[in-house]
Structures are given as C-alpha cells and as structure tokens.
C-alpha cells in the first residue's frame, strides 16, 4: 500500500477510493472537475424540485376533495424539502444557495424540462405523480449509493419521502379510471400529453450524452440515459394496461427476444427546444421563481437586521 500510494497521482488515489466504493466526504481532496460536475448536477436537481413545485402547486387550490387537497399540499411541500436537502448537499462543496439561485434565475443553471409543460386538468396531478415521479425515482434510487457522501445521504432522505408521491399519483389515476367515462377520458388525455415528455426526462440518447462515461466512472451516475428509459417503459406499459389506458406510442410492443418493450423515437427536436428555453411554460416558471425571490428579499433582510439588533442588545446586557 505504501509503495503504491507513492506512485499514484491524487487523481488516481481518488479514483481508487471510488472504485473501492469508499464515500467521498466534503473535506476530502477531490478533482476540480468532480466538484464542479457535482455542484452542477446537485443544484440542477435542487432547482428541479423547486420549479417542480409550480405545476402541481397550481392545483392545490383546485383539488377536488379535502383529502386530495391535503395530500397534494403535503406532496408539493415535500418537494420544497427535497430542494432544501439538495441545496444543503451542494453547499458542502463550497458553493452557496444564493449563488445557485442566482444561476437558476439568470438561466445559466438548468432544471428538469418536464416542468415546462402545463398542468391542465386534475388528471395531470395523477400523471405527474405516477409518471414523472416514477421516472424521477428510477433516477434517484441508484443515487442513494452515489460516491459523494452528503449527496447520497440527501438522496436517501428524498427517496424515503418520495415513495408516497408515486403511489398517490397512481391512486389518482386509478380512481379516475374506475370512475365515470368523463374521468377516464380525462386520465387518457393527460397520459397522451405526459408520456413523451416523461421519456425525455432521462435526457438525450447515450450517443449524444458525452459526459455519461466520466460521470459513471465517478459513480455520480449509475445507469445510462437509455438504460433508464428502457427500464421506465418496461415498468410503465403494464401499469397503463392495468389502468385500462393506452400509451400514446403505436410502436410499443413486447420484444420476446430482448425481454423488454420496443418503443418509438422521442421527438428530439422538441426535447432540445424545451431545454433551450422554448417550452410553453419556461418563461412563466422562471419568472415565478425570480418573483418569489425578489419579493422575499425584504423579508430576508428584515430577519437578518432583527437578528443583528437582538445580538447587539444581548451583548450589551451580558
């Protein structure tokens, strides 16, 4: 071991620890690129939670029963919590929440494109929980074993809380599908709108995802985009069938040889358009976040000012 470490560069030692599944902790040495990539990835995830509150928050005041209202509010509130856990994890890497928010607000930092689609009917609350959270969970569960300790611990907490989100979404869909014809139609119409954008959540095809190899080496990504997309389709098609709904892709067909579903090609032009800021709701979503932050500035300042006054008074008294 002694002799080995003498010939290994810090980068090689770092990689050796990761390969041995040893977690990296905040004060440990890490390559700059690892730190930067993680900050980008974790903050992007945090931003997604934050912006993700908006499309569902949109329906809290219109939820059709008191029970659904409570569930939805608790769920959207959880997303605020998840954003907070993730910002905290990123802060251990030497950035600040203010900096990350500034990057979100300036458009420099990205968030998940799925939240740039509008929620138009109550069934969208079902689809967001069932499909969107379902897709998110596929992404997130492997990250509970990611190489960076604070990130992995945040993800454990997120996944634990997230498990009710998908179930409540499925339950909303199931209630609709077992209800009146108008409810079933509502469910199908929502599925038609959300299916393809959800498939886009896994990101570009592996061939167009140049950073995947490095991220997998660093174990901050544990499956490729295409692997996760396939997993998702395999998981969801039977669930849609159970609900009596039709996935809006005529190419979906069980492939006996592959033991997986074949499915059609995502509309990549639409994918890139939304990523670049041209989705229907990009403008409103970002605007809502900027507005909340700016409207809150005087509140945050007041609390700081009061804390300073109080501390000064206590110092005098002591």
């Amino acid at each position, binding site marked *: 071991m002694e002799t080995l470490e003498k010939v290994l560069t810090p980068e090689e030692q770092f990689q050796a620890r990761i390969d041995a599944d040893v977690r990296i902790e905040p004060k440990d040495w890490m390559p700059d690129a690892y730190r930067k990539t993680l900050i980008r990835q974790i903050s992007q995830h945090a931003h997604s939670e*934050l912006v993700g*509150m*908006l499309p569902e*928050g949109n329906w*809290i*005041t*219109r*939820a*059709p*029963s*008191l*029970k*659904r*209202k*409570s*569930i939805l*509010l*608790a769920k*959207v*509130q959880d997303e*605020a*919590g998840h*954003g*907070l856990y993730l*910002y905290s994890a990123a802060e251990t890497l030497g950035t600040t929440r203010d900096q990350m928010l500034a990057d979100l607000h300036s458009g420099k930092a990205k968030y998940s494109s799925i939240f740039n689609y509008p929620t138009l009917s*109550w069934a969208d609350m079902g689809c967001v929980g069932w499909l969107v959270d379902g897709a998110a969970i596929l992404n997130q569960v492997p990250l509970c074993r990611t190489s960076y300790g604070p990130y992995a611990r945040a993800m454990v907490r997120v996944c634990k809380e997230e498990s009710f989100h998908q179930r409540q979404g499925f339950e*909303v869909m199931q*209630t*609709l599908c077992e*209800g*009146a014809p*108008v*409810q079933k139609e509502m469910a199908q119409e929502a599925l038609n709108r959300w299916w393809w954008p959800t498939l886009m959540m896994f990101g570009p095809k592996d061939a167009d995802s140049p950073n995947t190899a490095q991220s997998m080496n660093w174990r901050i990504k544990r499956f490729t985009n295409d692997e996760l997309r396939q997993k998702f389709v395999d998981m969801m098609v039977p669930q849609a069938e159970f609900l009596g709904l039709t996935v809006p892709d005529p190419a979906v067909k069980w492939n006996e040889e592959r033991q997986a579903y074949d499915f059609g090609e995502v509309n990549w032009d639409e994918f890139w358009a939304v990523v670049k800021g041209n989705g229907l709701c990009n403008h409103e979503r970002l605007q*809502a976040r900027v*507005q*909340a932050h700016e*409207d*809150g*500035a*005087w*509140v*945050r*300042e*007041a*609390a700081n*000012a*009061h804390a300073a*006054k109080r501390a000064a008074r206590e110092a005098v008294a002591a």
Partner: protein
Amino acid sequence: MSAPLPETPATSVPAAASNQLFPFVLQLADTSLILAHRLSEWCGHGPVLEQDLALANIALDLLGEARSYYQYAAELEGQGRTEDDLAYLRSAVEYRNPLLVEQPNGDFAHTILRQFLFDNFHYHLLRKLKDGPDTQLAAIAEKSVKEAAYHLKWSSEWVIRLGDGTDESRKRLDKAIATLWRFGGELTTPTATETALQEIGVLPDYAALLAEMQAHTAHVFAEATVPLPAPAFAQLGGKTGRHTEHLGYLLSELQYMQRTYPGLTW
C-alpha cells in the same frame, strides 16, 4: 389526516343546543379551511425555502382541523352530507368564516399579521374548548391546540422580526395593520349562535378570551417596537354570511372541480 373522533358521539350538550352547535362547528370548519386555502397559495412562492415549508405546515394543520370539524358537523346535521359536500357545495353567503381569514395574502407582512390575529384568537379559544362540555369538540381542540400553540409562536416571532427589522419591513407591517386591524374585532364579537352557546357553557365568554389575547398582543407589539394600534371600527358579517368580495373568487377556485363535475368521486 383528520383527527380521529371518539367512537361514541356522547355529548353532554342539551339537545336544544345542538341546533346551535351545527352552525358553530361549521363556522370553525369554514374558518380553518379558508385560511388553509389562503396559506396554500404561498406554496412554491415563499420568501425563502424554509418559510415555504413552514407556511405549508400551518396550512396542513388547519386543513386537518377543518376536516375534523366538517365531519363532526355532517354528523350533527344527520342529513347524510359528507365533509366534501359541506366544503364544496355551499355558496358564499352560506359560508361562516370571519372576514379576516378570507382576505388576500398580500405581501408577507399582510400574511403574517392576518395569521397573528387569527392565531391569537384560535389558540386561546382552543385552550378553552378542549376542556369544554362537548366531547367531540373537546377532542378536536385537544389535538389542534398543540398546533395552534406553534402557529402563534411562529407568527408572533415574525411580527417582532418585521416590526423591529428594517425600515421597509416596518413600513409594510404598518400598512398591513392599516388594512387588517379592522377585521380582528369580529373574532371575539359573538353572533347570536355563539351567544346561545355561551349561555349554556359550550363556548367560553369572549370577554375573558379577549383579555388574554390583548395581553399577548401587547407583549408582542412591545417586542416589535410597534405602538399598539388604536381600536378600529370592527367590520362584522363573515360569521353570518355577509362576506367581502374576495370570498367569491376563492370559492370559485376551491369548488371548481366539484361544480364542474357534480357527483363524482376523486
């Protein structure tokens, strides 16, 4: 979600009072629901993530409390209506919440002051109700008073921070006082229903409540370095169905699904 109610609806309230109890329980339910609804409008728009969570927690507490009251009201009425029928299928003039809670969120100072005025009443009322003679109301109050104690702590501290914060926060708090103070008096002005329930001891005397509330307000405002506002002309009417125009908009959103798709299960 909602408080489990005792198995046997054994109430020691005279039968004659139960027709007063139904509208009063409904009033409590409407009050908590409407304020929860307003607070839930903040979700995703709070001044800082930590306070976004705090606001949603309060909204969830109030929503849970409202559901317990609606379920009890439905039981008292005995007409087979459900909590959702009561919440979603009544018109503005049938709603019995005080005017204060239907007022729009405004800025954070308005929300905080509205919350403080309500919490101060709510907490002190629940402390009495939990020892009251109506066992179901007492059970709901027993659970809710713990939540209300936290709400009051939270909103009181924010009144202090905003009052003794920056010039701007103070200006905004002053403006909130100018807008909302006139709605505080309704909380402790008994309606005929409340007076009837006070006479048979189901409800506490509001004058005694008011003294406790005023003591707390005086303490908080002193800490906040804000002079106690002069008593304002009390706007009344919400508890008897005479609302401000804000309620109609709120209800049209709240009731949208139930009104558009009548009779379905969600």
